């Protein structure tokens, strides 16, 4: 197996493993979906109107949950030092870590998203777009979130700092994805929001690793 494949397998196992990973993210997501009707009232029309948006916001927040451990763990135990002593560029290493984060949390969340949306009263015909948006959005959340996680390396209360750095970066995908879902629900053309979400995710995947690697180098030196 290639070095990158070896790294991806390990990172996914770590992200999937104890004390985090898919169950925490999906559990949090299910919790929001359960509490929402209790908070805003259970009238079906009102719930159905906000269901796709609420599901989408919960998705963004669930993606934040395990983010602060993305680099912190490897920074604290010296693994980040050793990872740099390889021919694999640090940018690729960062990208692989974010990809593993997406595989362990973004993918399960995307599968849970339509269930939560339907449970809240969204039309089942939205399900396809909900999954597609959650997949793309999750990619953007993981790679943009990685920048925040790398920038807060070595800071005490890094988790809080990560959230503060990352939330503005989460705004565009929330707007684009939420817009696409609202448009489809209203019977309007939805492709513009979806395409912008895809473009944002592509930009995050392309540029995020450069920023993360620079932040990691800064933290190590």
């Amino acid at each position, binding site marked *: *197996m290639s*070095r990158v494949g*070896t*790294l991806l397998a*390990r990172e996914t*196992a*770590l992200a999937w*493993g*104890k*004390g985090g990973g898919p169950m925490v993210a999906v559990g949090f997501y299910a919790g929001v979906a359960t509490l929402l009707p209790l908070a805003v009232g259970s009238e079906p029309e009102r719930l159905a109107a906000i269901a796709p948006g609420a599901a989408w916001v919960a998705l963004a927040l669930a993606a934040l949950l395990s983010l602060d451990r993305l680099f912190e*763990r*490897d920074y*604290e*135990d*010296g*693994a*980040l*030092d*050793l*990872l*740099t*002593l*390889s*021919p*694999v560029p640090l940018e690729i290493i960062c990208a692989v870590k974010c990809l593993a984060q997406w595989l362990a949390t973004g993918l399960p969340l995307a599968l849970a998203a339509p269930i939560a949306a339907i449970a809240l009263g969204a039309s089942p015909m939205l399900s396809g777009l909900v999954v597609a948006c959650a997949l793309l959005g999750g990619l953007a959340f993981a790679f943009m979130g990685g920048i925040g996680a790398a920038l807060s390396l070595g800071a005490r209360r890094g988790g809080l700092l990560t959230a503060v750095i990352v939330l503005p970066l989460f705004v565009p995908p929330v707007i684009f994805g939420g817009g696409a879902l609202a448009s489809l629900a209203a019977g309007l053309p939805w492709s513009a929001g979806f395409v912008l979400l895809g473009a944002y995710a592509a930009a995050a995947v392309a540029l995020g690793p450069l920023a993360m690697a620079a932040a990691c180098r800064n933290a*190590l*030196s």
Partner: protein
Amino acid sequence: MIPEVSIQSLALSRGGRQLFTRLILKIVPGEAVALIGRNGSGKTSLLRAIAGLITPDEGDISFGGVEPAEAREAIHLLGHLDGLKSSRTARDELSFWTGFSGGSPGAVEACAGQLDLGPLLDLEVRRLSAGQRRRLALARLLAAPRPLWLLDEPLSPLDAEWRGRFGEIMVDHLRGGGMILAAVHDPLPLAARTVEISR
């Protein structure tokens, strides 16, 4: 892979404090150098600078004409931060670092056996004692051979028997044309040139 390590008039500072200036050091294949110096004198920082993790203030670290980015692949760094995840089994961690460092998967069992780690491989890293954990980190050096070993206090958690056996392992590494730079407080259990770091 790298013919030598040559350090010319190196100056390092950490957190705004000058650690040392005008450090000169040369290591050739088959040679072990023991770095001594007081706590905080910059031994660890020197090792990290050679590994390319810290940029020196002044001076030059060269690897006999090999590009620094390429030379990194010829370096093993072993310190008290060993990069081992306590929630994973010893086997998982050793296999990962061996694979990622370019070693062959078959070497994992052999090197674990050489360091008497066989019965421990299925334990989580958190169950290992400090000495066992250090041996696990050391197994990584054997499983993925690289010529330059940068060791930070390699002996400290090891008992007398293992200090001796680690000495033999280091002698074998030097015989094969390896280089060792070790930051130590106790003398290394092999013939080594001693370099003292001071301001």
